[in-house]
């Protein structure tokens, strides 16, 4: 699964730490999601989408291998 959280953060002017605090996870978790090392749960993905005020599919997308 791929995501464009880094871009969304730039648009919203949020650091990893800032985003992490808004969705109640650690900065390591946000970093792991951005670098593709961790696929967030549905709940967390929805929370992240809500922070950026975008639908989930605009932030997360399936890849060929999924």
């Amino acid at each position: 699964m791929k995501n464009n959280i880094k871009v969304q953060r730039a648009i919203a002017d949020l650091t990893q730490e800032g985003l992490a605090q808004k969705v109640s996870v650690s900065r390591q978790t946000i970093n792991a999601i951005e670098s593709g090392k961790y696929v967030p749960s549905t709940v967390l993905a929805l929370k992240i989408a809500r922070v950026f005020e975008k639908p989930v599919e605009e932030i997360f997308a399936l890849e060929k291998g999924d």
Partner: protein
Amino acid sequence: MLLPHPYKMVGWVLFIPAILAGLAFTWKLDLPLITIPFPAIAHTDFFQDDQHWTITKANLFGVLIPTVGILGGLLITFSKEKQEDEFIDQLRLNALQWAVLVNYLALLLASLLIHGMAFLDVVIYNMFTVLLIFILRFHFMLYKTRRASHEKQYQGTESYS
């Protein structure tokens, strides 16, 4: 299924001395032989009739070291980190799975290559190795993700300037 974070330190305080004492015992450094009366489901020993379901003269260190070691190991393994989230949950479960696998592979190798009374040492180590391997693997993965996120953080800010 996790205890509050403060229990982790308690775990370390119990685990490390028990491991050291246990190692001393297997390396044949003699610990004083103190016996205490203790309930036993079974007690077999040299130069002694087998005892079952009775109060027996148990070796104090023989009871204390494994008990304290296992309790300490469990407290470390099953206590929360300072900041818990779903990612650490996954790290923890993966590490547990990994530890069980590695432990049993090692045990398999030992069954093939270590024989006789030497195998008793293997069995004794095996009492602690699942927890120990988990502790090492889990903290290593935590360290790796922390370090990766520090590097990534600075990479990320570079591209904006």
